[in-house]
């Protein structure tokens, strides 16, 4: 027979489980070592079939990392595309791809940006001079100059959370469980299994950067530079022209 304290504890666990939606929690990393005991290689798989474009990841990332208004470390680009059944919606969550061959690192003149052993590409905000060269070099537009700090900024896979065994904020809040985070070196990790069992694609593979963010269900038309011919940006441009 369970005591009242045990029942309350179980209830709390159940409540937490409901509050952490989706299957993302299954991929919860364990500090800085993988199940194999080696240094992990963090990566992400985004199952586009599950993404509903709610932008919860965008908001949670901005809240977690205090990203200034107008900048984004991650965002869900949303398109209307033609399908066999007529117009349809396509979503594409974008973030730093924590590439194996990151073009942002060698250009840095002060070695402020570097890759950790776990594959995460990070920036030393105290060392960065804000020259913006890495921002130019990133083919994924994942970097920006933070308006408040005056240094380069980007997704870090929430290094401050992963370091203590938590998931990145975007993964934690993903309503549909589309974002799965884990160790790409571990045979039994959720990301490895997804990559093994599904056809996955990366963005802009011809750039030779070897991205470590993989997509399931990526439309070919969204893999490289998206040839969008009209839409929200065009409207913004028109507004800007009228204002000027």
């Amino acid at each position: 027979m369970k005591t009242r304290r045990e029942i309350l504890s179980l209830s709390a666990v159940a409540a937490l489980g409901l509050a952490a939606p989706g299957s993302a929690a299954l991929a919860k990393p364990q500090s800085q070592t993988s199940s194999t005991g080696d240094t992990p290689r963090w990566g992400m798989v985004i199952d586009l079939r599950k993404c509903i474009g709610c932008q919860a990841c965008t908001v949670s990332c901005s809240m977690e990392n205090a990203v200034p208004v107008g900048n984004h470390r991650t965002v869900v680009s949303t398109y209307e595309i033609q399908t066999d059944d007529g117009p349809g919606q396509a979503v594409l969550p974008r973030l730093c791809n924590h590439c194996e061959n990151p073009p942002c690192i060698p250009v840095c003149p002060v070695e402020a940006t570097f890759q950790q052993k776990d594959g995460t590409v990070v920036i030393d905000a105290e060392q960065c001079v804000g020259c913006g060269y890495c921002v130019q070099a990133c083919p994924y537009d994942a970097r920006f100059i933070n308006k408040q700090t005056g240094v380069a900024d980007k997704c870090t896979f929430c290094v401050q959370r992963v370091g203590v065994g938590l998931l990145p904020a975007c993964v934690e809040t993903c309503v549909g469980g589309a974002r799965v985070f884990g160790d790409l070196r571990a045979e039994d990790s959720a990301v490895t299994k997804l990559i093994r069992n599904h056809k996955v694609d990366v963005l802009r593979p011809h750039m030779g950067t070897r991205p470590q963010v993989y997509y399931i269900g990526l439309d070919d038309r969204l893999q490289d530079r998206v040839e969008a011919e009209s839409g929200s940006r065009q409207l913004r441009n028109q507004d800007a022209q009228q204002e000027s």
Partner: protein
Amino acid sequence: MENGIVDLISFDQGFAWDHWAVWYFLLVGSAAGALLIAFIAAVRDQNAPEIRPALFAAAACGLTAAVPLLADLHQPARFMHFYLGTAPHSIMWWGSWFLPAFVGGLAMLVVLYSPFGDRFAAYRRYLWYWTAIFSVAVLAYTAGEMTIVRARPVWHETFFPIMLTLSAIISGSGAVSIVAAVRGQKPGIAPQVLATGSALFVVGVAVWIAAGWGKNVVDGGAFADLALNANPVNLLFLMTGICGVGGLVMALVASRAALFAAVSGLLAVVGALIFRWELFMGGQAQLKLEAGFLPHALINNNEALAGLIGTVGLLAVVVVVLSFVLNHEGENKDGHTASHSVL
């Protein structure tokens, strides 16, 4: 509509390099171009009269250039980080050494050609070679650091480093022509360089557009896309053509009057400024992830105005100082002091 893709939610990260960068690249490119003209004259004769306007132009541009470069850093107070470590894999890091070596050489040359420098005239030869080598290094690093950026299709095209360097040489020869005309000095080979460079420039722009005609932006069509589809950048390309052709025509008649030489020089400098603005700001406006361009409203116009006023203001101060320092003509071969001139 051909492929039927409409962006419903998109985002813009803005410009990482602001107008200060355009000014820096223009000034340091002009300084290197002008210095090379002076160097060619100095190789023949270290007291050749055409050295002075070219050295004046090079020094004015070079000594001013460091300020917009610092201003373009978003953390300018941390510039010492360039020198407190090594990053040999970064072209920009090499540039951080080339620039002071070049500007330092320019400053030393100004001193050696001032009234205080005659006693050190023996060192001029070494300093000319030093500064000429680093002027080439500056041209190479400024073009190279942008050309390697594969993520910016315009900068990564084959024509880019060629045209950027050519515009630097045109602008440098234009600056020399202006100084020579205003100070009543011999421009040396500057008008010929300007005329030849302008002709090559106009042809080069046309060939660059033709080479990218109908191609995808990421497959060599970025410059053509920028020139033909981006508004108001395409208007600026028209202005570049006018400046290029105008500079060429004026340079061809420059020998008839100093006014024509000054106007041709001004057209060359303005043309290079506009062309570089197109490549730098237009290149950043050209989106990496989607077709189209960033709204130019994202450019901070107050910052642009501050850049213009700050750079031109500083340039004016440097010109005034140089007009006194380089007012000394030295001695001619026959031992007579040449006539002094004032700005």
